[in-house]
């Protein structure tokens, strides 16, 4: 998988449009979901995704194959997302926090499978908890949120996260440390309830 992605990137580096289209199809959904997790701004995702794809086209020749293609691409996406967020709202985090009160954090109500009313109550509780957690994660600063998502959703080692975010590994650990503390404040029962299932 990674081998074929490396090959694809090399071909894109040689300005092969067919390879670029294949890479686009392989990455579109992954990038969309990732950008949405990092930015929490559905209105900006597509625009940033365009920027990311264009940056891949321009920069693929410089991909040296030392990191995984996905690490390289997610790194580009992270930095494009940061840039878009700072461009769009100078008060960055403040704006995101204030949006929290008005908008659903994830459009999960429309996208999740319909609720089965016969399902056990504990499952309903967990769904509710996941929804609240989604909101709590959204309230984190973008750098902390990215570390949380890359660790727990994408299951990446901290070294790779540091590479994606372009920062030292200790910064990744510090960001996670603060994120954990903040999430516990927002969701005091997280440890117990989360581990019950």
């Amino acid at each position, binding site marked *: 998988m990674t081998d074929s992605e490396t090959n694809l990137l090399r071909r894109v580096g040689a300005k092969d449009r067919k390879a670029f289209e294949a890479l686009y199809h392989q990455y*579109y959904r992954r990038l969309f*979901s990732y950008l949405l997790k990092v930015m929490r701004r559905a209105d900006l995702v597509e625009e940033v995704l365009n920027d990311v*794809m264009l940056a891949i086209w321009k920069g693929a020749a410089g991909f040296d194959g030392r990191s995984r293609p996905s690490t390289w691409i997610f790194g580009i996406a992270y930095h494009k997302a940061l840039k878009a967020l700072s461009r769009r709202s100078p008060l960055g985090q403040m704006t995101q926090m204030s949006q929290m009160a008005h908008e659903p954090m*994830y459009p*999960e109500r429309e996208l999740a499978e319909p609720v089965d009313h016969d399902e056990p109550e504990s499952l309903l509780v967990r769904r509710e908890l*996941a929804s609240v*957690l989604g909101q709590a994660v959204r309230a984190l600063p973008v750098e902390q949120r990215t570390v949380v998502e890359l660790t727990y959703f994408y299951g990446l080692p901290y070294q790779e996260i540091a590479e994606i975010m372009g920062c030292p590994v200790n910064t990744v650990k510090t960001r996670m440390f603060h994120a954990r503390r903040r999430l516990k404040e927002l969701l005091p029962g997280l440890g117990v309830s989360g581990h019950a299932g």
Partner: protein
Amino acid sequence: MRSGAERGDRLHRRVWDLLPWYANGTLEDGERRAVESHLAACSRCREELSACRGLGELLLEVPEVAPAPHPAHLARIMEKIGDHERAAWRSPLESLRNLLTATPRPVRWALAAQLALVLGLSLGFGRLLLHRQVAPVTYRTLSDGPAAPVPVSGLRVVFAPGATEQEIRDLLLGIRGQIVSGPSSLGVYTVEVPMGPDPLDKVLAHVRKHRQVSLAEPVVGGER
């Protein structure tokens, strides 16, 4: 010397920081073992690990939003790439033009002449190669057939912008040269001179010394 309690605190903090990656199973062996041995002795870290696992499990339950791409989206990106590529081609040409307009006129002339020369030479060389491939090679002795025509050499000459017809004529008469073509759009004349007792180098040096000649180069390979 550091006390055992201090060392213990440092280890605790180090392990505490690593717990999320212990929970997601990505720690390298050494760190994983260090975390495991500390966990066995530290109930706070065990509780925290349980919280980390809970967080991870819950985050995986948050539905992922990942629509399929719309064909028009890819088309738009390809269009942007096309724009980018065109701009990348345009910019070297534009910078060349800017360079030329910023260059003083006499230097510009010389540059143009050199460009013409390079083009001319490469074309000439190309034709020579082509000619070699196609034409049969014949060898003649002095006693063979009709006398060979008087051999000539070619020069490419660019005259200074202020050169008068009289000055050009005098120069050509001095070397028994004849303009056989030109001026090209870049102002290059091709001048034929008979191969006389003077070697071409000497003729060339004479032409180059002339104050109304900007540039003179031999024509390679008999190209006219």
